[in-house]
C-alpha cells in the first residue's frame, strides 16, 4: 500500500515519535501535574499548542505544493479559511436556540440583519458528517476549478503566484460583504459545542489539541507518501523542468492538479481544527498577507523538507506569541529581523542549518542562476 510506505522510513518514524512523545508529555503535564507545579502545562498553553499544530499542518500543505511542485501559492489562506468556515457554519448551527435572540434556525447575525430564512448554502450544516465533508470538499473544489483553469493554461511562476493572491483577495472582499450570509467582518463566533462537547471544557480543549496532533501526523504521512512515491519524483521533475517532464510523456497538469487539491484539502482540515480552538473565523484569514506569512514559515523552516515547514510554523508562531506579550511595541522589529536574517544567512532555512551541521558533504547547485550561468 503506497500510503504506508513512509512508515518504513526512519525519518518519518522519528517525526511521529517526537510528535507523539511531546503531545503525551503535554497532556500528562496538563492532567496530572497540579496547578502551580513548575512543569504544569495550563489549558491555555494546550490550546495555544493546538493552534500551532493547525498552523504546522497548513505549512506542510504549502510545502507540498511549493517545495515539491514548485507552485508558490500566495493564496493558501483561502483554503484554510474555507475549511474554517465550513467548520464555523457547523458550529453556528450547533448553537441552535442558545443564541441571544433564541432563534432555533437562524444564527444571531442573520436575525440581526433581518434574514427571514436560512440561505440554501447553509442547509445541511447542522449535520456533522456533511459539515466535515464540506471541510474537504469546499477547498478541494475551489482548488479543482482554479487549478484546472490555471494549469491547463500553463500559468506558471510569478503569474501563478499573483493570481492565487488575487483569488484569496477576491474571496476576502466577498466574505466581507454582509450580503454573502457569512457574517461579514464579524465572521462566525460565539460557538458553544462541537458534537455535543462543550467547547469551553478542558477535556474538549485537550481533545482538540490531540485531534490537531493526529491530523498533523496523518497529513505528514500522507505528504511523505506522495513525496517518496514515483509521483513525488514526477513532482520534483515538474518543479525543476516542467517542459522536460512533458516531453517524457507525463500530463503535467494532472499531477499539478492532484497535488494542489490534496494540499488544499489538508489546508482545509487545518482550518477546520483551528476554528473551534480560537473560537472565531472571519474574513481576515483570507488576507493575502496571512498567506504570505505561511510561505514565510515554510521558507524559514526549510523548503521541500516537510518537517522544515513544521519547524518554521512552530518557531514563528511561538515567537509571535511570546514577543507580542513580552515586547508588545517592538516585536515586529524582532520578527522582521528574523525573516531577513534567516533568508540571508540560511538559504535552506532551519532545516538547512541542521543539515549543514550534520556535515552533509554533497553540495549541489540549488538555484537556477547557477545553472543558467553555467550554460551560457
Amino acid at each position, binding site marked *: 500500500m503506497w500510503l504506508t510506505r513512509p512508515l518504513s522510513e526512519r525519518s518519518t518514524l522519528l517525526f511521529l515519535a517526537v510528535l507523539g512523545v511531546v503531545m503525551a508529555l503535554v497532556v500528562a503535564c496538563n492532567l496530572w501535574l497540579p496547578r502551580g507545579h513548575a512543569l504544569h502545562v495550563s489549558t491555555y498553553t494546550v490550546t495555544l499548542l493546538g493552534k500551532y499544530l493547525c498552523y504546522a499542518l497548513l505549512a506542510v500543505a504549502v510545502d507540498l505544493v511549493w517545495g515539491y511542485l514548485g507552485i508558490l501559492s500566495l493564496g493558501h489562506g483561502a483554503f484554510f479559511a474555507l475549511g474554517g468556515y465550513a467548520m464555523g457554519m457547523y458550529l453556528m448551527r450547533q448553537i441552535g436556540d442558545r443564541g441571544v435572540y433564541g432563534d432555533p434556525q437562524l444564527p444571531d447575525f442573520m436575525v440581526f440583519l433581518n434574514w427571514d430564512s436560512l440561505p440554501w448554502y447553509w442547509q445541511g450544516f447542522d449535520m456533522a458528517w456533511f459539515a466535515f465533508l464540506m471541510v474537504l470538499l469546499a477547498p478541494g473544489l475551489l482548488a479543482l476549478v482554479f487549478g484546472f483553469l490555471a494549469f491547463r493554461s500553463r500559468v506558471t511562476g510569478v503569474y501563478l503566484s499573483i493570481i492565487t493572491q488575487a483569488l484569496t483577495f477576491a474571496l476576502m472582499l466577498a466574505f466581507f460583504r454582509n450580503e454573502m450570509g457569512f457574517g461579514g467582518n464579524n465572521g462566525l463566533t460565539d460557538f458553544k459545542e462541537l458534537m455535543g462537547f462543550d467547547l469551553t471544557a478542558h477535556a474538549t480543549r485537550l481533545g482538540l489539541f490531540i485531534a490537531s496532533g493526529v491530523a498533523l501526523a496523518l497529513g505528514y504521512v500522507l505528504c511523505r507518501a506522495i513525496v517518496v512515491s514515483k509521483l513525488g519524483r514526477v513532482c520534483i521533475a515538474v518543479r525543476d523542468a516542467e517542459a522536460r517532464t512533458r516531453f517524457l510523456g507525463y500530463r503535467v497538469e494532472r499531477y499539478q492538479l492532484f497535488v494542489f487539491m490534496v494540499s488544499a484539502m489538508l489546508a482545509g482540515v487545518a482550518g477546520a481544527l483551528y476554528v473551534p480552538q480560537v473560537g472565531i473565523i472571519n474574513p*481576515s484569514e483570507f488576507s493575502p498577507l496571512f498567506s504570505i506569512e505561511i510561505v514565510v514559515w515554510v521558507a524559514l523552516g526549510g523548503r521541500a523538507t516537510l518537517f522544515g515547514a513544521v519547524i518554521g510554523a512552530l518557531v514563528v508562531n511561538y515567537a509571535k506569541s511570546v514577543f507580542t506579550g513580552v515586547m508588545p511595541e517592538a516585536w515586529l522589529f524582532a520578527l522582521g529581523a528574523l525573516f531577513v536574517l534567516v533568508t540571508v544567512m540560511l538559504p535552506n532555512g532551519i532545516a538547512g542549518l541542521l543539515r549543514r551541521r550534520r556535515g552533509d558533504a554533497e553540495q549541489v547547485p540549488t538555484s537556477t542562476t547557477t545553472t543558467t550561468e553555467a550554460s551560457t
Partner: protein
Amino acid sequence: MIRILPSALHRSLSRRLTGGLALSVLALGISTTALAEDAQDPIKVGILHSLTGTMAISESTLKDTMLMLIEQQNAQGGLLGRELEPVVVDPASNWPLFAEKARELLAQEEVDVIFGNWTSVSRKSVLPVVEELNGLLFYPVQYEGEESSENVFYTGAAPNQQAIPAVDYLMNEVGVERWVLAGTDYVYPRTTNRILEAYLAANGVGDDDIMVNYTPFGHSDWQNIVSEIKQFGSAGKKTAVVSTVNGDANVPFYRELANQGVDAADIPVVAFSVGEQELSGIDTAPLVGHLAAWNYFMSVDNDANYDFIDAWYDYTGDDEAVTNDPMEAHYIGFNMWLEAVRKAGTTDVDEVKDAIIGVSVPNLTGGYATMMPNHHITKPVLIGEIQDNGQFSVVWETPSTVAGDAWSDFLQGSRDLISDWRAPMRCGNYNVVEGSCGAGAAETVASE
C-alpha cells in the same frame, strides 16, 4: 525557480526537532506557572489594544491613555493600598489573536480587569473567553448594540446615544429631507443604518429620499460615490450624508468631498466614526462645518476636561496631541471600576460586577456617568462641527444624559429584549413579551 535539494537529506533531522519542541513546550510551561496572589501584590490591569497592524492607528493612543490613568492613580496611592500594575499585550489587529491574548491576560497573568478592544469583531472574539474565565472587560468604543454580556461593560455609545440624536438634529434644526447613509461594509454601519432607516421611515421620509451605500474597509477611491451623492443632492431638497465610514477611508472621502466642491453648507456630512484623532490626519480647512456626533469633544469647555487634556499633553510631551471620545470612555470606565472596587473592598470579579451597577462618576463634559443595570452607561450626546484647527465646536447637545440601550427598539429581533444584570433577573437578553430569559425563552415556548 529555486531548486532545493533532495529528499535524501531527510534522515535523522527530526532528532534536532525533538530538542526544539521539547524546549519550547518547557518554556511555555514555565511561563504558565503563576504565583499565588498575596495582598501586597499589585492589582493587575490588562490592556488589550492593538499596537501594530491596521488598528494601531486608533488603538495605540488608548493604551497610552490607560497607562497615564494608572500612573495618575498610583501617584495618588493606588487602590485599596495596593499598587496598580498595567499589563500590556499586543493583539496586532488580528481577531483570533485578541481571543488568545485575552486568555493570556486572564489565565496566565491573572489580571483583575481588562480595558481593551476597538472593533466589534475583536470584542466578539474576546467575549466567549471573558465569559468563560469570568473576567471584566471595559469596552470604550461606540458600537452597534445588540449585545449585553455579564462580563463586559460598554462605556462607548450605543446607537441610541449617537445616531438617533444626530438624525434628530439634522431633521429638526437643519431641515434635512433627503438622506444618504454611507458606510463601510461591516456590522456597525449595517446595524446603525437599519436602525436609521426604520427611524426615518417612522418620521415620514420616503424610500426615494434615502440612498444607502457601502464600501470596503480602507476604501480610497471615492470619486464615483461623491459624484453620486452630489447628484442625489441636486433634487431640490436639503440633503445630508450620515457617514459610518470607518477609520482610514475617511481621509480620502473628505478630500474628495472637498475637491468636488461638496461643502457643509450644501450637503453636510454627519459622521459617527470621525473624531479628533481621525481629523488630526486631515487638512480640515475645506471640511469646516461638517458634523460629528459623539459623547465628548476635546473642545468642551470644562475644567475637568482641561485637566485631562493638560495631563495628556504632559504624558505625551506633545502640546498638539488630541483627545477623543473613546479616551473619555476609558477615563469613565477606569474611574467606575476604581469606585466599584473601593465599594466592594476587593477586586473579586463577582463582587465588583455587583458593586459597579449604579456607580456614578464625573465625565469630562461637566456631568456624571452612571453604570446602568444593562452594563451600558449614561452619556450626553453632542453634535459638533469641524473647525479649521481639527477640533469640533459643539452646536447642539441633548438637554440631559441618555442611557445606553443594549437592544434597539427599531430592530425586529431585539424590540422585546431588555438586559438587567442585577440580582433577581441577571439576564442579558430578557424577553419582556415571553417573560423569560433569552435562549431559555424559545425552549419554554417549544415545550409548551
